[in-house]
């Protein structure tokens, strides 16, 4: 036990002096997620603001040919900017991005409108650009409203009940709550948390195994009167310590970021305060020894830093897979899923973030399974270290 703490202390201090470890474990890993997340959420919020709150801006060419349409649009709050462009010029302007959406009233509009024939309107937009597509959709909706208003009046004049022209009336009921729409975003956040946890221990797991072999200090270490299990235990414990630090920093950074992003608009519990962060920390804690043992186990089989990095890159992908499944199949917290590490942490964290009630039994199952897998991996690692092939 004393040897275990000796190894722990040495690995902890030695890596504290390594700039590369510190940079990736305690700066890049923990901060990457919150910063990207903050930028992403801000952009999503900006877009939804554009969609609903801001008045629709429309460039219109030949408005003088359709005064009725123009005044209707303006009465609906559409900001019109009148220009005179040919069809080709309009195409060019939208294509090059100088204008977003242009409505063209062709020359024969007035004549056909007066004759009761379908009057042509051209809406020039670029559907490959999601921003202008939204503007075009809104413009189409307003134009459709204008068209059906005109149609109803024409029927009335001819003594026909306009309702006859509406054989069915479709009412759309959208059950998506803001919280449900936030699920994808939440999936990203929990992924960043698990990513930061693994990044926190990545270099230490490599340095204490493949690094030990590469710099030639392994054989001297293995010749000491120390149980191999103590060596492995100390190394994994040091890796765990860095992962806990990374997790703490990561959650702190998220708390700070959430402070500036108005999350209530996405339907998330509006303040990720200290209490919520502590809850997330507790949920993730059992994942720490699992990740540490997994990375140390894999790195123990490699001969060099570079080889270890290659293999551990795939280990870093491990937490993504269950989370991807969770969003594809829209999984919710339930007992049977608590048996899958990383997925269980993801679901529980998502529940906490959505301020949903969580069952203590779920938390316990999630923790117990993660710790059990961690223990198995530790035993396997210690067993590998006892083999002669460990010398390389």
């Amino acid at each position, binding site marked *: 036990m*004393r*040897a275990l703490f*000796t*190894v722990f202390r*040495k690995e902890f*201090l*030695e*890596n504290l*002096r*390594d700039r590369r470890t510190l940079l990736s474990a305690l700066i890049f890993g923990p901060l990457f997620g919150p910063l990207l997340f903050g930028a992403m959420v801000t952009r999503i919020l900006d877009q939804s603001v554009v969609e609903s709150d801001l008045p629709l801006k429309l460039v219109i060419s030949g408005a003088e040919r359709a005064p009725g349409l123009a005044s209707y649009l303006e009465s609906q709050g559409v900001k019109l900017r009148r220009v005179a462009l040919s069809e080709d010029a309009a195409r060019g302007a939208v294509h090059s991005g100088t204008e977003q959406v242009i409505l063209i009233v062709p020359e024969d509009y007035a004549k056909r409108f007066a004759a009761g024939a379908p009057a042509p309107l051209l809406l020039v937009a670029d559907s490959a650009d999601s921003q202008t597509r939204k503007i075009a959709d809104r413009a189409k909706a307003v134009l459709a409203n204008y068209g059906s208003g005109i149609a109803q009046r024409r029927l009335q004049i001819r003594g026909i009940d306009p309702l006859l022209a509406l054989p069915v009336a479709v009412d759309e009921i959208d059950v998506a709550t803001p919280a449900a729409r936030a699920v994808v975003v939440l999936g990203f956040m929990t992924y960043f948390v698990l990513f930061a946890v693994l990044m926190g221990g990545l270099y230490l797991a490599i340095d204490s195994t493949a690094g030990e072999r590469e*710099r*030639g*200090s*392994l*054989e*001297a*270490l*293995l*010749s*000491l*009167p*120390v149980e191999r299990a103590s060596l492995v235990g100390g190394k994994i414990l040091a890796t765990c310590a860095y992962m806990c630090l990374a997790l703490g920093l990561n959650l702190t950074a998220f708390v700070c970021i959430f402070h500036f992003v108005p999350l209530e608009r996405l339907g998330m519990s509006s303040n990720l305060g200290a209490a919520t962060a502590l809850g997330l920390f507790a949920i993730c804690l059992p994942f720490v020894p699992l990740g540490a043992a997994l990375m140390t186990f894999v790195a123990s089989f490699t001969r060099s830093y570079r080889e270890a990095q290659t293999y551990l890159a795939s280990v870093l992908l491990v937490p993504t897979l269950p989370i991807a499944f969770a969003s594809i199949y829209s999984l919710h917290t339930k007992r049977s899923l608590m048996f899958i590490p990383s997925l269980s942490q993801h679901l529980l964290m998502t529940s906490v973030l959505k301020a949903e009630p969580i069952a203590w039994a779920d938390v316990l199952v999630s923790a117990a399974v993660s710790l059990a897998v961690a223990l198995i991996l530790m035993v396997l690692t210690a067993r590998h270290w006892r083999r*002669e092939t460990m*010398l390389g």
Partner: protein
Amino acid sequence: MIEATALCKRFGEIEAVRGVSFVARDGEITGLLGPNGAGKSTCLRLLYGVLAPDSGNARIDGLDIRGETSAARAHLGVLPHAAGLYGNLTARENIAYFAALHGIGEERLRRRTGELLRTFGMEDYADRRAKGFSQGQRIKVALARALVHEPQNLILDEPTNGLDVMAIRNVRDLLRALKAQGRCILFSSHVMQEVAALCDRVVIIGHGRVLADDAPEAIRARCGAASLEEAFLTVLGDAEGVN
């Protein structure tokens, strides 16, 4: 005292060590001499117990290295072929780490580190990180690390490899001093002069077998050779003929 008894070790098809027996006594320097690939390193690894023999056994002061590993290793200091240091630790910390793993207490550690730093003339760079050390400085720290628990027995795998003349002389003086303290020193080398200059006893190994085991002078005389180098070549040549 280090005893090897009928040690055998094979790696797949290759028989690396085939029944090696010898004794390295206290107060003597024993040299394990042999060409590259003769099985010297494997032999030493069997002796300090990081490899398990297929048959035979190794004893350190009478303690079985496989059965009583921890006790045997407490009597043993090891300088493996690859004797790397922890670059982010200072020379002093590198030594202290191994001392702590040997279970040496704070006070004894401070005294021992002081002694070793003085003996090896390392005081100038004791508190510098090992990252930028020269090969000579590295070997000295690794040796100090192997000696920190004052072991009765010492196994060194090619300790003077890659050292300059001054550093080699340093290591030799140190080994002589340890011998004078009555310790048992076993080291491997493929450099003849080294063995001739230092050893009380030479064990010549070729193709995993002991070809000669005697004082250098006796081996030379028996072969009727003018120098130990010639005797070494004669012994190896005879073995080639036998095989």
